[in-house]
């Protein structure tokens, strides 16, 4: 109630759940190259499903982590799999509004169906080369954060 003045636009908080350092790097590159399309985001990286859940639930070393505006989720993850992370987040009343885009190499019918059954917001198959990969990432982030109206941020 103190801040009556126009608030400074908050930085975009992105959570990338990805165990492959190459893909993490490519995602970073893609966002860096985004230029005017997307304002430079805070990219948080969780390298397995358990860490992703810790981050989202602000547990352990992620105490005080921001609530992300968008989660990019790989399916093939160590410890806790991507499907389970998806199911847990979408089954949690405090988290289920956070948009989750599944970003994976799999184009298996079963994976697609199960992800949407767990209320994934989109399912994107990682394209083959860097250029197409980068543009896919940018388009997803742009669409979910700039084109679409995101859900209001949960209070910390």
């Amino acid at each position: 109630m103190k801040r009556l003045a126009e608030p400074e636009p908050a930085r975009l908080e992105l959570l990338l759940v990805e165990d492959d350092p190459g893909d993490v790097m490519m995602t970073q590159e893609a966002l860096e190259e985004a230029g005017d399309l997307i304002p430079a985001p805070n990219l948080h990286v969780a390298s397995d499903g358990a860490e992703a859940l810790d981050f989202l639930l602000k547990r352990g070393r992620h105490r005080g982590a921001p609530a992300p505006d968008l989660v990019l989720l790989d399916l093939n993850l160590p410890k806790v799999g991507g499907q389970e992370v998806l199911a847990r987040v979408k089954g949690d009343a405090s988290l289920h509004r956070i948009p989750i885009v599944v970003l994976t190499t799999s184009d298996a019918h079963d994976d697609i169906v199960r992800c949407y059954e767990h209320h994934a917001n989109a399912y994107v198959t990682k394209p083959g080369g860097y250029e197409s990969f980068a543009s896919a990432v940018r388009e997803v982030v742009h669409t979910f954060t700039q084109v679409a109206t995101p859900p209001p941020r949960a209070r910390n």
Partner: protein
Amino acid sequence: MTLGALAADGRPGAVRRGPGIHRRLSAWPLRRRVSVLTAILVLLVALAWTLAGVTQHSLQSALSNQSDRIVPGRVGVDRLQRDLLEEAVAVRGMVIGGTAAVPGDYPRAVADEISQAKVIQPLLAGSPELRAAVRRTEQLASQWRQRVAQPSLALAARGLPAAQIAKLNLASGRRPSFQSVLDSLDVVDAQLARTDTAATRQVLDDSRTLGFAVFLAGAITVLAGLSALVLLRRWVTRPLLALSDGIWLVARGELDREIAAPGPPEIARLAGDMEAMRRRIVEELDSLRAAQEEISRQADELRRSNGDLEQFAYVASHDLQEPLRKVASFCELIERRYSERLDERGKQYVRFAADGAHRMQELVRDVLALARIGRLDRRLTEVDLNDSLRQALTNLSEQVSSAAAIVQSDELPTVIGDPALAVALLQNLIANSIKFRSEEAPRMKIAVRAEDEENWRFTFADNGIGIDPEYADRVFVIFQRLHGREEFTGTGIGLSLSRRIVEFHGGRMWLDTSVTRGATFEWTWPMAIAKAEERKVVSREAIG
């Protein structure tokens, strides 16, 4: 087997009491049993009726003896007595004279008497005793006539008074009296009466015997019929019913139930044959079942191994994609970010690496596509191939318009299949024709006709560079390329994919080598009608 079965479930008591006889009898064939039974019954009935016949005959002769001889005999004797008395009356009348004398009465009476005696004689032919008695009476009568009647008549004719004649007659002594003649006749009569009584008794006896004989014959006939009924039931009906029950149980599905029928050898043999047939059927069924199990086990195995293979191809392709993507992507990044730091040779190395990775990606993608055709969870529906063709042309619109390709097609049928695969088939063929076109603008023609009652036959002809008949089969082999990579791009999977799609739907695909201009592919595809009819039948059954 049948003897054992009989001893086991027949009547053990009977078997214990007289095993020898019983076994010998039960070994008799039905034909012999029936023959012997019939012979015995016929003999018994014949005996009874013969007895009745003989008795009847005896009764008949006794009756005729009485009516034809004895009764007329007695009447004859009565008449003889009357004639004799008339003779005596006539003699007395003449002797007394006056109105009593009737001349001519005596000779007539004598004639009557003699003729009557002659009538009697043959009636008594059966009894010499009686005939002798009659003859003696006749002799006495004749003596009386000679010695008493005729002398008296002669004296009366001379006019002698009756009293004197009587005196003369009495005085003559030893003259036979008329009374003795009558007495002799009485003896005959008494004898005849006795014979009559005996004959009556004979008739009574015979008729009683006849009644008994008829009753006996009837009883034997009835008993014979009953025993034939009982024995036939025991020998034929009961074993047949037991056999039929056994067969019925087997027919109802209790195939392990042994068929056995206690009874005569013929029925036992029938049961034995049936039992052999049952065992044969059970054996055949068992081996059939075993074969079926083996087949279904193999089918399961095959399904599993197909599934495994598909899974393997899928996983392998998928897992191969991941590192390839990395190689391709970072090659790209090196080119973008560090190209100014690389010399021309270094740039070329990176390009080769990227190119190799891209090609490998294509190959892996194609293997994946090929592996997916046979996916077991594909849902087959009715596919209008005209729609499939339209979709294929839409997917290829860029290539089609840039090559100015023209695709002509017959009205295509609706078939049963996977819609995506049907599009892929046509799309592969059209893309193939555009890729391997000659200098002319590519032209394609799709034709269809009935191959037989159950299959369509499609023909896809183009005006491209054609395929040497030598390679007619190689074009369908995965990753087989007939042309250098520089000449034509692509992995060479299009046609093997097409053939696999056709084969997945139960058809065949081949290259028509008789066509020299361009390439002509042909393939068959099962007609939808059969499936549709099948479905109709199934739904009718479901309703019924």
